[in-house]
């Protein structure tokens, strides 16, 4: 949006206030995105902080082609994936998420969601394979089109749509199972 271009323009010319406004505008959305991707509040903060740090360091060379929100979203997605790759323990945790989520106070969603219903859903999302979770999170929290997700992940639009659909189906079955218990 034009407002972002103005903020960026001001920031490039040394306005710290402009950067604060950019941060205030997008930080919560990016934290939500990272927290849902990583299923960890502290890691999400680290990722978002890293994204903003590399953004401010490279801002002078930065030329905004699309939207700033889209750019920052892609940075968070890429860095979250790197974070998981580099941190093998993350994978182990992902496997055991269901058990972990019941006790782990770092779970991002537990901290902010009082509703039991949403907590169940949060645990179910955490159980999804990363590829499916990623598409769901990008679509619903990143507000990205399937076309954009497909381009970002270098997959076909159909694959992106399938991952989304399978992910939601799986969530439904996880939640049904939980209800049966």
């Amino acid at each position, binding site marked *: *949006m*034009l*407002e972002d*271009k*103005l903020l960026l*323009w*001001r920031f490039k*010319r040394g306005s*710290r206030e402009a*950067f*604060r406004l950019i*941060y*205030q505008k997008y*930080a*919560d959305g990016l*934290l*939500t995105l990272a*927290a*849902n991707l990583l299923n960890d*509040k502290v890691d*999400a*903060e680290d990722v*978002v*902080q890293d994204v*903003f*740090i590399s953004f*401010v*360091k490279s801002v002078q060379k930065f030329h905004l082609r699309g*939207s700033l929100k889209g750019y920052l979203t892609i940075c968070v997605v890429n860095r979250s994936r790197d974070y998981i790759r580099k941190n093998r323990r993350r994978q182990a945790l992902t496997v055991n998420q269901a058990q972990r989520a019941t006790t782990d106070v770092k779970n*991002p*969603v537990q*901290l*902010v*969601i009082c509703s039991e*219903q*949403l907590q*169940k*859903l*949060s645990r179910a*999302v955490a159980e999804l394979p990363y590829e499916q979770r990623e598409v*769901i999170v990008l679509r*619903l*929290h990143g507000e990205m089109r399937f076309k954009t997700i497909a381009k970002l992940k270098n997959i076909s639009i159909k694959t992106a749509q399938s991952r989304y659909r399978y992910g*939601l189906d799986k*969530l*439904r079955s996880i*939640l*049904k199972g*939980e*209800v049966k218990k």
Partner: protein
Amino acid sequence: MRPAEDIDKLIKKLRYKASVETHDRVLGNVMRALDESEKQKTGAAAPDIWRTIMKSPITKLAAAAIIIIAVSIGLNQIISSTPAFAEVIQPFLTARTATFKVTIEGKGFPGQEYDGMFMEPCRMRHTQPGGGIVIVDLEQGKFVTLIPQLKQAVVLEMINVPEEPGDLNFFQEIRMRILKAQPLDDESVEFLGEKKLDGQSAIGYRVQKPELDATVWANSESKMPIQIEIFEESMTVTMSNIVFDVELDETLFSLDIPKDYSVKTLRKDLSEPKEEDFIESFRIWAEHMDGKFPSKMHRSTVNEFIKYQQEKIKERGIEPSVEDIMQMQQTIVDMTHGFPFVEALTPGSDWHYAGADVRFGDAETAIFWYRPEGSITYRVIYGDLSVKDVSEENLPK
């Protein structure tokens, strides 16, 4: 759990709202990283210069002399240099409000002049010749024209408003062009020197970039812009008497219509036009222009259409009814939706327009062709508005 189809809505509720402390911590860390980065940049350059001077085979006294000369040269450069263009145009980007006069002149249509006001984020108000008042609020997606003499309001409801709808807000359009033309500290900007403009001493700049072809004049003391001329292919738009950040009452931009006004509504689709919209524009044009197509493919060609309709009304010798005028306005709005399709085509599309002398219905003669991105064949539109895929060697000569 709710029915399965609500899952996506529920997932959207899985939001993470960080505490104030978290934000303070993250923002603080980012700011510290920025400080470090800036220190490193300046720190990395300064010792090198110093070391170079101190390592040279001259005495420290000579080194000091060199530093003094270097500083003097720097000062001279600052004193003799012209004010940076970026500084001069900055108010266009940072102003919260502005008032100005706009003059549009060009070949083939009468000049237009109006007084305008701008207020952030995307509001504009201007007066029309004859007393009409136009208020545009792009956030609300509305464009209201009030005609006090007739106690009538025309509401243009915009759908599919894009993120940067500059066309409907002249001030916003200038902002966008300046931003798109960045950087503006290169050889594309020429300093024009000083002259008297409207009784003020003004300094001028000429910018020639694809995104912005303009002359900007600013008060030579305050460096505030007082006039900008934008050159289009067949018209010049001048914004003068510019005053930035004046106190403006929000009610001036209100979209509320006085109770005693009658209201007519038009609709404008601002979505990105597709090929079928482009063809529909040709159809509307030809049907209202006695079977002719536009003389050329350019934004200003709409004036050709309007002029022709005005002449037809004159020829009839009957005063058009309000309904007739509204119908014509809606036709113009619909007709102009598809033509910007051409502006979105990339240079690689190799588009050609050849419809100037073709009659509507001529199935043999092509009026327009282009190559869609990634395609090896061309899309060719004929005078009967049929479309065919044609290989390059079979294109019209």
